[in-house]
């Protein structure tokens, strides 16, 4: 019924869209055209509203200069000819629009600054890229700094190295740089420059004018912007970008030709090297990055599902809390509709698996399913958050991230570290306090588990990368050596940040493989600095952004850092954790990978992530309250069954995304269903697998289902894939067989009980699937009991084994 009404709305809305397109005026960017100097130019973008979309007309319009003596036009680019005020005309069908072009500075000499004018050319054409001369030892004897992060090095490499053979000022075109770049002599990288192009000419001018390095009073590049910054595009359409560089003296330059472009979701929207975006046929959002001179600007493109949807549908969707409204808003933009609400048994099983890391027992399932009170879902969430398994389960997630290999740092240090993490969750320690205690930890590895962080990560740069990634979602690894092409952080940012850990000192016995079992003290020393690796300059501690408390005698470097980092005003801190928890509960992070928050990897729903992060901070970083907020939203309770208008969605939470159970969750659920407990080495008898203090404790099952492997790099990587090994293990594992057929197990108990066969089948369905069997399932179950040679015991075991091998058990729905 719903799909029919949607179709009617789609049909009704079509004529309206067409009518609007005919009357909308053309919009030209930039609104004012100012050309300064003979070598300047300006790209134009012309767009027009069409229904609920804005459509790019740049390559459909005709642009002509009405004053060729002042300016000329090539395609969508305006060039200066002579100083003065000119005019251009833009025509589309019977629509025309005229614009003024102000030209100045023609005939004046604009001295070239190497960093401002030449380095971007080397970057644009890939000369200093990783595969070419930008790699660590250069290419064929010629090395440039990666992506031009060190212009002094590059200047020397071009002008002085190899006795200056790369440049030839008396005849600039004969310079090896240009001959190679234009492939006029053999060049391994092929032809990069076209003789006569503006960039080629700039290089010629630079060489001809004596290869100047720096010009006095050169304005600093402050930011880069793109037009349009965001766009909703229909399938298979195009959109031209214009990239503008803004300098400290207030001037701007069109750098569309020199920028580099990249899409984070090429299937949704791709971009070519000229900045032309092409949308595909996949619904979703993409971020198109334009990078110029190590600064980045993003254009966010949404490609909605074709067709129209009545907006009232979104207005009438339930909103249990702010999460729902913001998810609906995003779905509305993409014209996706949410699935129905999940059934009670699905919600029950999902909540148990998500919050306490095991499936409900038959008794727990029966109690919930027969409860008719309207608020039972909310009460269930509250109940689960109070269970001791909550702490053990959620600890494993942080243990994955923090807990090192005991063979490397020592058994006792890891045991204590694990216990520190678990105690933090047992007492529901606020997340800011958790991080603060960790980052400022001092004392013995035998008495304060948190200091094991500093036993494992021993140098300022090792700790910096971990802290940046884990707590701020900022990956700084690349910035150790160079500017990362998709990041805004450079070496100075990295080492200034690392200086917060410069005075972490160790006393005692350090790492001494193969047995690193001794005690070590970690404390704040009075000396220790971090130097810039290029300039050797001692760097004072400085946060990545914003203001941090001053380091004094009373406030140590690490305390100052912790205060800055865990501040409620630091959006990275709260949003990174909010995104982690969201990903755990919803099956996919708003940002993926969950610890990689950057402009070039935007959230699928930034407004929601911002709101969730703020809510988390406002609730004093209470992790349970964050989980409760998400789990009591309507969105969390959506079914995973797609509807017509969300089958394409895999990222916007229009339905629940199924996941294979984590290794420990699956194992503990099996133990619970079979009633046969497991023994682990270095653990007391009867504990669950989520209580293990190291992944070094042997378990074939847990390894098969992808728990982190300390032998891998990174060791915290948890494999969530489904593999043939897993299926075979469930089918053939001797251990599982023993559990199912144990004389003390649940199957034996049921078979020996007074229950009828129907009641046993019902118990099995409740304990394995958390639901009652349907009539047909009951009949199939009974046929197992009635089959030839079957006893109550074998039939119960067979049924249990078969059900444990089904996706309904192995997946979280």
């Amino acid at each position, binding site marked *: 019924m719903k799909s029919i009404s949607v179709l009617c709305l789609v049909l009704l809305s079509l004529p309206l869209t067409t009518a609007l397109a005919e009357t909308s005026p053309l919009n030209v960017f930039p609104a004012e055209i100012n050309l300064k100097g003979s070598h300047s130019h300006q790209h134009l973008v012309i767009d027009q509203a069409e229904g609920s979309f804005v459509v790019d007309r740049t390559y459909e319009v005709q642009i002509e200069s009405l004053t060729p003596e002042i300016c000329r036009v090539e395609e969508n680019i305006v060039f200066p000819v002579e100083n003065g005020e000119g005019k251009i005309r833009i025509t589309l069908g019977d629509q025309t629009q005229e614009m003024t072009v102000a030209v100045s500075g023609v005939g004046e000499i604009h001295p070239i600054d190497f960093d401002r004018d030449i380095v971007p050319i080397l970057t644009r054409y890939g000369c200093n890229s990783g595969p070419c001369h930008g790699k660590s030892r250069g290419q064929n004897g010629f090395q440039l700094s990666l992506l031009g992060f060190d212009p002094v090095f590059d200047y020397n490499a071009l002008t002085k190295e190899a006795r200056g053979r790369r440049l030839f000022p008396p005849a600039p075109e004969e310079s090896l740089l240009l001959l190679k770049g234009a492939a006029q002599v053999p060049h391994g990288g092929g032809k990069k420059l076209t003789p006569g192009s503006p960039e080629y000419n700039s290089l010629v001018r630079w060489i001809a004018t004596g290869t100047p390095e720096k010009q006095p009073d050169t304005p600093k590049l402050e930011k880069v912007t793109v037009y349009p910054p965001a766009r909703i595009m229909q399938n298979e359409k195009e959109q031209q970008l214009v990239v503008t560089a803004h300098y400290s003296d207030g001037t701007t330059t069109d750098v569309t030709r020199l920028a580099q472009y990249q899409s984070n979701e090429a299937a949704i929207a791709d971009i070519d090297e000229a900045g032309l975006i092409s949308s595909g046929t996949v619904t979703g959002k993409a971020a198109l990055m334009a990078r110029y001179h190590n600064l980045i600007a993003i254009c966010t493109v949404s490609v909605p599902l074709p067709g129209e949807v009545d907006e009232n549908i979104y207005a009438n969707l339930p909103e249990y809390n702010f999460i729902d409204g913001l998810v609906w808003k995003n779905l509305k933009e993409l014209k996706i509709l949410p699935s129905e609400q999940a059934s009670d048994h699905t919600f029950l099983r999902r909540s148990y698996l998500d919050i306490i890391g095991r499936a409900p027992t038959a008794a727990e399932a029966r109690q919930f399913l027969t409860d008719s009170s309207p608020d039972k879902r909310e009460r269930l969430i509250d109940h689960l958050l109070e269970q*001791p398994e909550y702490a*053990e389960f959620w600890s494993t997630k942080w243990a994955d991230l923090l807990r090192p290999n005991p063979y490397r740092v*020592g058994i006792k240090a890891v045991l204590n570290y694990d216990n520190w993490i678990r*105690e933090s969750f047992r007492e529901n320690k606020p997340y800011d306090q958790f991080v603060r205690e960790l980052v400022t930890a001092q004392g013995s590895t035998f*008495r304060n588990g948190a200091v094991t962080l500093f036993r494992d990560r021993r140098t300022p740069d090792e700790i910096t990368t971990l802290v940046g990634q884990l707590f701020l979602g900022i990956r700084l690894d690349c910035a150790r050596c160079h500017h990362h092409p998709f990041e805004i952080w450079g070496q100075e940012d990295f080492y200034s940040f690392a200086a917060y850990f410069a005075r972490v000192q160790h006393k005692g016995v350090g790492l001494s493989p*193969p*047995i690193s079992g001794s005690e070590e003290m970690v404390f704040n020393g009075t000396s220790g600095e971090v130097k810039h690796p290029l300039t050797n300059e001692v760097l004072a501690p400085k946060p990545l952004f914003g203001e941090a408390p001053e380091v004094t005698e009373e406030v140590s470097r690490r305390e100052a850092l912790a205060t800055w980092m865990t501040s409620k005003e630091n959006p990275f801190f709260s949003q990174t954790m909010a995104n982690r928890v969201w990903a755990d509960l919803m099956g996919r992070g708003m940002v993926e990978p969950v610890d990689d928050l950057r402009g070039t990897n935007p959230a699928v729903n930034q407004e929601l992530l911002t709101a969730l992060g703020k809510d988390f901070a406002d609730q004093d970083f209470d992790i349970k309250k964050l989980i409760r907020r998400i789990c009591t939203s309507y969105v969390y309770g959506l079914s995973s069954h797609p509807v017509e208008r969300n089958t394409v969605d895999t990222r916007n939470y229009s339905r629940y995304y199924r996941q294979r159970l984590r290794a420990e969750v699956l194992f503990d659920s099996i133990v619970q269903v079979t009633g046969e407990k497991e023994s682990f080495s*270095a653990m*007391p008898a*009867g504990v669950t697998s989520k209580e293990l203090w190291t992944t070094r404790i042997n378990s074939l099952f847990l390894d098969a289902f992808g728990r982190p492997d300390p032998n891998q790099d990174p060791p915290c990587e948890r494999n969530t894939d489904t593999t043939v090994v897993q299926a075979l293990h469930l089918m053939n594992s001797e251990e599982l067989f023993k559990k199912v057929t144990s004389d003390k197990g649940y199957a034996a108990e049921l078979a020996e009980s007074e229950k009828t066969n129907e009641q046993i089948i019902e118990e099995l369905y409740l304990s394995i699937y958390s639901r009652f069997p349907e009539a047909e399932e009951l009949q199939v179950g009974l046929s197992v009991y009635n089959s030839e040679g079957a006893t109550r015991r074998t039939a119960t075991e067979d049924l249990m084994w078969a059900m444990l091998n089904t996706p309904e058990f192995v997946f979280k729905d």
Partner: protein
Amino acid sequence: MNRFLLSKFCLVLVLSAPIALKAAVPDIKAFVPMGGKAGTTVDVKVEGISDKDPAPAIWCSREDLQIAAGEKPNQLKITIPENATPGLAWIRLHNAEGASNLRPFEVGHITEITETESNNTLETATELKEESMTVNGVLGSGSDVDVFKMHLEPGQTVVANLQANSRMGSPMDGVMQVVSPRGFVLRQHDDDLGFDPMAVYTTAEAGEYYIRLFSFPSTPNQSIAFSGANTYVYRMLVTTGPYVDHTTPMSLSTAEPTSVRLFGWNLPRELHELTLPPEAANSSCSLPAREYSKFT
């Protein structure tokens, strides 16, 4: 047989005979148990001494304890008088070849029990029925976990203090867990006094709570496994009664009454501060920290 070889064989026999008859220098690896209650006689097994060796002579730092050889050479019978001062006695064994190391033996004043296997799981836990009890136990192998059960009411504070490595010389690095009635760890304690753990836990709900003990070797090794042996001996005090942790000042005047403040758990108001007469200083009641469960 070759004649030369035969003579060599005889020579070896002649030389080795006196050595085999002679006892080795006594080497005490452990006393099992490591203490006893005043007013009782305790049979103590000496780990490290063969039951085939001649019984060594005994030396003790305290004269109030009567120590006699047991039925076997590696056993002692220690009689502790009713009025014996709580604290440590140091015992040495010696024979004609030399003297052993000194090992401590503790005199206590509260009920003692000996842990018996199997108590590895919550279901088979040894029940502690009195308000204050001292457990004499052994973590006999790498798979040994000792579990003790007690009933607690809401708001009750239980103190469990393990003595094994730091003062008693047991080669274990014990770990102590307080486990909830549902079987989940509430607290885990590793080092308090040296390697020996101590737990203080106040309950929120009534129920059967557990103290669970296991150990790693005090000299770290590379095995991810618990460790245990006959020498992994411990004494554990578990109490829900008054427990003195420390005092200020830590000494008494022999000339005038001294006002002493007591710190610990479950201390009634009248025990927060005491005035002790000068003669208390002469009673050799030195009150080592965390010695008593009951200050009476």
